[in-house]
């Protein structure tokens, strides 16, 4: 049985970032994210991105692994950027070597029919394709658009609608794109180099000085740590249930809406019962070992700042000061 589901994407390469105090990493990450949002100059953002990637390289995390972690979200980013470029019609149409980036499309019965055939083939083939679904979809999308651009004879449905790339539109969408990629890189830098246990300790550590809200924070930290502890267990349980239900003939692969609802219910109900039972047992175990919510506790994992943390903070302060300075000056 696969019982090695570990939460997060931590890879231990014991680099200088791994050795940093989790509090430092959390604070730095958070403030750098804010810093990145203040910047509205494409080249500066690009510079930041390059810099962050250099930092990733020094963390010795395999670059491939790092980039793979973007995989789930990359399609979303590409599409939102595309839509932004198309729908943001501020400024002037961009001109490349004398050609205006402005296109007229016409939807006719003929290219509609061809498009439908292409889409049908796409959906039929989709079952057998495991990798690169997104890219293929993108290609299909462009082919369909191309048909409407070139293949414009026949009875017209929608005549010459225009899509153009505007300079302001392009700039704002690239800006958003760069910001998001920067944020992803920063958060990846944190999650690849920090164990979930340390993250939890770090959150607790950051709020420790705020005495008036300590009670709430210690409960929150306990809740996070319990969640981190139980997510893999519950995933394991759900796979067990899936298998048990599958062996009783519940088909989880495909089916119609009615079947889908039945499948979800046959997973959710046992999951709910199991979680409830586990929570009860766990509460008992915690209470029996003297846990009182909100009460002060000592910790076995004590966080200590080291020299590296100092340098990081110094750098962070310089970074933020520079950004805020130029922001006020209106340069970036």
């Amino acid at each position: 049985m696969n019982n090695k589901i570990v939460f997060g994407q931590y890879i231990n390469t014991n680099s200088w970032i791994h050795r940093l105090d989790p509090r430092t990493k959390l604070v730095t990450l958070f403030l750098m994210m804010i810093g990145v949002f203040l910047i509205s100059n494409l080249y500066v953002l690009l510079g930041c991105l390059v810099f962050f990637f250099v930092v990733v390289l020094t963390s010795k995390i395999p670059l491939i692994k790092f980039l793979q972690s973007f995989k789930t979200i990359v399609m979303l980013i590409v599409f939102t950027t595309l839509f932004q470029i198309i729908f943001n019609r501020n400024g002037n149409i961009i001109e490349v070597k004398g050609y205006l980036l402005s296109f007229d499309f016409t939807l006719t019965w003929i290219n509609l029919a061809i498009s439908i055939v292409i889409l049908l083939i796409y959906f039929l083939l989709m079952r057998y394709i495991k990798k690169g679904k997104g890219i293929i979809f993108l290609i299909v999308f462009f082919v369909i658009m191309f048909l409407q651009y070139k293949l414009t004879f026949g009875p017209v449905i929608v005549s010459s609608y225009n899509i153009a790339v505007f300079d302001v539109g392009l700039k704002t969408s690239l800006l958003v794109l760069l910001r998001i990629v920067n944020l992803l890189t920063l958060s990846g830098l944190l999650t690849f180099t920090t164990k979930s246990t340390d993250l939890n300790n770090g959150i607790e550590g950051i709020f420790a000085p705020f005495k008036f809200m300590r009670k709430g924070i210690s409960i929150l930290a306990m809740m996070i740590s319990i969640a981190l502890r139980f997510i893999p267990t519950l995933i394991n349980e759900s796979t067990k249930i899936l298998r048990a239900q599958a062996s009783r003939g519940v088909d989880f692969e495909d089916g119609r809406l009615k079947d889908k609802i039945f499948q979800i219910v046959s997973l959710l109900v046992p999951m709910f019962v199991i979680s409830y039972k586990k929570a009860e047992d766990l509460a008992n175990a915690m209470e029996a070992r003297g846990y009182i919510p909100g009460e002060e506790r000592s910790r076995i994992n004590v966080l200590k700042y080291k020299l590296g943390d100092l340098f990081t903070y110094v750098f962070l302060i310089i970074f933020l000061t520079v950004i805020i300075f130029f922001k006020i000056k209106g340069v970036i």
Partner: protein
Amino acid sequence: MSFISINNLTFKYNRKGYVIDDLSLDIEKGEFVCILGHNGSGKSTLAKLIVGLLEPRKGHIYVNGLDINEEKDGVMNIDLVRKDMGIVFQNPDSQFVGITVKDDIAFGLENRRVSTEEMIDAVNKYSEKVGMKDFLDRNPEELSGGEKQRVAIAGILAMNTELIIFDEATSMLDPKGVREIIALIKKLKGQKTIISITHNLDEANFADRVIVLNKGKITLDGKPEDVFKQFDKLKEAGLDILNNMKLIDKINNSNIDECNKKVIEDALWELSFPK
């Protein structure tokens, strides 16, 4: 008054019949008590009542002379005596609180605000004792049921409580693991008050006192050698060990070598108390 004194304790879950039925029991400091009983006889329920996780319908439980379900000056007595009681639960999965083995063993100590250095020492010492020293940074997902049970035992031992309740604490261990842990529990005899809910003959024989529970009542209570003679009552309590006891007797008096004896005995004992 005895260290633990239970008077006319009655308990039931919801509408069902009584799980603990007018039960009275005194346990002295330093006693090693084994509780036997078939599945559903109320052993775990009794254990949870003693450590104050369940509230009795009727009757009283006194620990150190304090009624654990009463409160005085706005402080629940249970909170005062909790530091004297530790329990290892039956299910090792859901009593694992920490994210790693180290965190879990330290959990009880953290609640008591023990200093970090002391905690690290305790974690090292007790993880060594239960043979989990090399697993300190593992997640519970990467441990077997038996390993989790060992961690749970280490966590309770580290708290150094006067009373330790083991609720089938060796149920998921292999024969070698059972022997190791039972040896560990045996070493506590005399130093601590032990209540062990068990299916292990070896352990029960070693105890100062064996209590047999049937339908929430104590049907037998006495020295192991006396209790294990009461075949009728044992049978009535669903512990059909008559034939097996005879066999064990035969084996003990035969000239099979020690190692094989042990294996056969274990097997017979398991037959008498199917899990």
